[in-house]
């Protein structure tokens, strides 16, 4: 038990957060301010911004699966100008760091957009390199270390803001990709985006999503992404931000133990709009009950050595 207040603060490079809980891009907007005080969160992460207006994919855009959600929203965006003139000023009413998520079709367009969102009021930029690169036959930048490294170098040169690389789980070499992001100048990696998946309606024989394939999120993917976050944390010295299937404070502790310095909550907010504030309260309660005075003590604290208890038992026998 801890008697005093629990220190929930964490540090992501130069950026200090009051607590490690923030929303995942695409699952959050200022509309949530109708439900709770947004300043309870560690940071705000915007929907992904593109330079031009995009209307997104055909409906249906979501489908439910066992303990998970399939989506293919298609990054609808009101464009850069709307972000600069409406979104950034709207967040002046709040005090936590604003993280702008951005996406583009080529490394050069990505870098230019990164420069254009590097404005006062934006504390960090999450570069969604999980999106398709049109110069690489539509493969996501973050599917391979080489394309990750070259994109990150251009992004790094375009901005002095902290840059977070959002990685895709749809690769066989995520640790190498994370290392390439770090070498290219990323200040943190976000592990990970959704897992490419699909569902077919057996009665109509039609795909459940208008776009046929989409991204799987929710509790269904958590063990896979915890593994990936663990692999990335071992491969880099920059902070890893865990993202995948978090619905409870226990899920957060799991990601922290695996080596993450903070986490993002997405799909859970769709089921419970107050999920993030409940998780923050429950995380403090977990720390209190388990003698953890500061939540950062948990980062990378998974125990893999022999169980201390084994030695005690053996001592009793011999």
């Amino acid at each position, binding site marked *: 038990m801890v008697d005093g207040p629990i220190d929930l603060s964490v540090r992501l490079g130069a950026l200090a957060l009051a607590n490690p809980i923030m929303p995942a891009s695409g699952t959050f907007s200022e509309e949530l301010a109708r439900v709770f005080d947004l300043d309870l969160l560690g940071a705000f992460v915007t929907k992904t911004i593109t330079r031009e207006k995009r*209307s997104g994919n055909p409906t249906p855009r979501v489908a439910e699966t066992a303990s998970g959600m399939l989506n293919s929203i298609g990054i609808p965006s009101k464009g850069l100008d709307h972000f600069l003139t409406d979104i950034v000023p709207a967040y002046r009413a709040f005090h936590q760091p604003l993280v702008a998520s951005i996406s583009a079709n080529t490394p050069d367009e990505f870098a230019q957009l990164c420069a254009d969102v590097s404005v006062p009021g934006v504390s960090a930029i999450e570069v969604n390199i999980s999106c398709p690169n049109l110069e690489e036959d539509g493969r996501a930048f973050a599917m391979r270390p080489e394309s990750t490294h070259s994109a990150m170098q251009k992004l790094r040169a375009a901005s002095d803001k902290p840059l977070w690389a959002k990685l895709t789980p749809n690769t066989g070499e995520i640790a190498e990709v994370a290392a390439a992001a770090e070498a290219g100048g990323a200040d943190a990696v976000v592990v990970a985006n959704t897992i490419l998946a699909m569902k077919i309606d057996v009665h109509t024989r039609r795909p459940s999503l208008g776009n046929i394939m989409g991204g799987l999120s929710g509790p269904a993917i958590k063990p896979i992404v915890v593994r990936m976050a663990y692999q990335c944390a071992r491969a880099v010295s920059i902070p890893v931000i865990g993202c995948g299937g978090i619905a409870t404070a226990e899920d957060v502790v799991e990601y922290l133990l695996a080596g993450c310095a903070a986490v993002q909550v997405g799909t859970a907010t*769709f089921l419970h*709009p107050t999920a993030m504030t409940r998780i923050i309260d429950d995380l403090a309660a977990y720390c209190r009950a388990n003698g953890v005075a500061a939540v950062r003590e948990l980062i990378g604290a998974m125990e893999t050595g022999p169980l201390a208890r084994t030695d005690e038992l053996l001592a009793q026998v011999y």
Partner: protein
Amino acid sequence: MTLSPKTVHADTTSPFPVGEHVCRVVTNEAVNDQYRLMELAAPAPALAAEPGQFFHLLCPQAGEDAPFFRRPMSIYRIDRAHGRLGFLYKETGSGTRAMATLRPGDPFNIVGPLGIGFTLPPDRAPVVLLARGVGLATLAPLAQAAAAAGNPVTALFSARDPAYLMSLDYMAEQGAAVLTVTDSEGTSDPEQVERLLRGLHAAGRMEAIYTCGSNRLMLLAQRLAAELGLRGEVAMEQQMACGLGMCFCCVRAFRTEAGIEHRRVCNEGPVFDLKEALSW
């Protein structure tokens, strides 16, 4: 959760008008072989709901039904005097099947009130409510609000069979004139409905029209509203995930002066200007 007191006033001053409320089920019974009526004991912030708004319902796990998302559902009845919220629904999938298993006293987690509801015309102008099937559930609270505001109401309800015409007594109690048409009686085809609507207009009973539940009736109402210069609104449905405007999965296309525009049914709707609606 406590039962609400006898007189409950809408909480319109809260900085957080949308809440996640764990309500108690009061009744959840079949009203015919297709529809059920659920009544919840709801707290004041939930009872601040306006006609046309909706709640996002966390349906339970029941047997093989494991709905993952919440289910959006329009409000059928807002009874502030008794602290009750009502939902009229049809068992159509895993969410509503699971919802049907709830018993009086069970907890039920609802998020809301959500979305933008109906707007009544000023100056006690007479209104027509044109609904088919479960669409009448969405329009029922509007009859109550219109009566309270002094707008004379004519309800024109369409269904497959007279057995599925619900809430007629309730509408009459609100002072609404009720007209019904059904497929089984051969009275519900659009030509006959159009004759009825033109008759209502000629009699000075229709200066605004509200519709829900049928694409064909929406198109008819839209055409007549344009021709006769009526105000009109349509309540729409769409599959939703968040219900709050964050995920952009519930968009529909609308025709505006600037061209085709996608809007979120949860956030810009579910009630929309009839003249901008497109066929679904």
